[in-house]
């Protein structure tokens, strides 16, 4: 179905000590589109997301087998530089987590530490990133103000701008709107659709309506297994698997 996958997993397994959290996942995620990963709590969807940028390695006792292939390279290869990987694969978290610094410095942080831009060029990167995150018009006159002065929705868009500033190919979003009010949520969803023209977006969400609204593809996880993966319009109107049907219609809790 997916012609040329941007991210592929091959027999991906993740263990927390002896607990087999992710079981034999084979998944092809298409480029420059939005893919949603859904499932109940503990189904493994966030673990799968964190496997893409090797964030699971930060969790003690966690180990991974199988492959995550991005642009033809297994990111678990010994030769892969994790810092470089996380530059290519950005992540937005559930709670907006701006750094305790100005709005400008938040967005400039990545390009500065990666040494990819400075001076006038850095200003351009910051502006473009803020524009891409649909925040520029709201903050252009207060770039030197603390990021904490922004609203929750604005802080989340700032975090998205911060990710975009290092020019990733893939943006992972773990419940990016679950702490936001409905209007801020819809703004983030609009933004995701805009970003999907240039980036591959993978979102984990508990909100099925959100997954249905924004994503082109959806994967349903249950107990560490990928139960069903396909076009969202098909999955939400006529799923193949009874377990998907039961979950999305709320028949199992």
């Amino acid at each position, binding site marked *: 179905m997916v012609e040329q996958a941007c991210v592929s997993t091959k027999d991906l397994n993740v263990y927390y000590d002896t607990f087999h959290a992710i079981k034999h996942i084979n998944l092809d995620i298409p480029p420059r589109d939005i893919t949603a990963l859904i499932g109940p709590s503990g189904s493994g969807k966030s673990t799968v997301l964190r496997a893409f940028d090797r964030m699971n390695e930060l969790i003690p006792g966690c180990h991974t087998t199988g492959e995550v292939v991005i642009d033809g390279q297994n990111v678990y290869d010994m030769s892969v530089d994790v810092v470089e990987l996380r530059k290519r694969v950005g992540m937005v978290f559930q709670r907006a987590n701006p750094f305790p610094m100005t709005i400008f410095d938040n967005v400039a942080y990545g390009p500065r530490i990666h040494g990819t831009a400075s001076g006038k060029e850095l200003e351009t990167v910051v502006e473009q990133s803020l524009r891409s995150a649909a925040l520029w018009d709201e903050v252009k006159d207060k770039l030197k103000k603390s990021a904490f002065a922004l609203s929750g929705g604005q802080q989340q868009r700032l975090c998205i701008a911060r990710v975009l500033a290092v020019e990733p190919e893939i943006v992972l979003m773990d419940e990016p709107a679950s702490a936001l009010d409905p209007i801020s949520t819809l703004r983030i969803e609009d933004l995701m659709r805009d970003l999907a023209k240039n980036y591959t977006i993978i979102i984990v969400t508990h909100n*099925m*309506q959100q997954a*249905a609204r924004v994503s082109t593809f959806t994967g349903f996880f*249950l107990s560490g297994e990928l139960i069903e993966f396909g076009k969202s319009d*098909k999955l*939400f*109107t*006529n*799923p193949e698997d009874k*377990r*998907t*049907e*039961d979950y*999305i*219609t*709320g*028949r*199992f*809790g």
Partner: protein
Amino acid sequence: MTPSEARKAFDEELVQLQEDLRKMGIVVEDMLGKAIQALETQDVELAEETIRMDDIVDRYNLDIESRALRLLALQQPMARDLRTIAAAMKIITDVERCGDYATDIALMAKKLADQPLFKPLEDIPAMAKMVQEMLRETLKAFATRDLKLVQHMISLDDDVDHLYHSLYDELTGFIKKDPKLTDQAVPLLLVARYLERIADHITNIGERIYYMETGELKELHK
């Protein structure tokens, strides 16, 4: 995973919605039977009773539609639930139209009640019987999700069409031979036409049941 009670109220509403749709269908089926009987027996009172019954059908139509809309807005149903509600919203429109045609037949029955018919009715009652069966069985198939029954009922539409065309030829033939028969032949031709249209609406209902069960929208009758 264990079954959840989370959607119990929603489930009950969904069941009730389908139950009311079935009741609406029974009223229309009854109207159709009465309309044809009124035509055959030239019973004006029965025809008028049939016409009054259309109000019941209209009330069901509005009530079911507004409840379906409310479920869509408030419960955001997915998958089978969504398809069931979407199908119900389309089906009530077709059932309501069938009720309108039954009313039209009753109006023709009134018109034809004041003098003896120029020939005894044969093909129209036969056609009505087929259409009644199609409606009854298709609504049964809605309740039981029986796609075989749906397909069988849709196949009967050809027979209804065939009967309509032979009635058309026969009645226009009478008019050509004796224009004085026009006053009776035209209403009878309209009754045949209404029955033929009801069968078409029943075909639509069958297609929605098919969609509800399979998720596939397609014409089942060519």
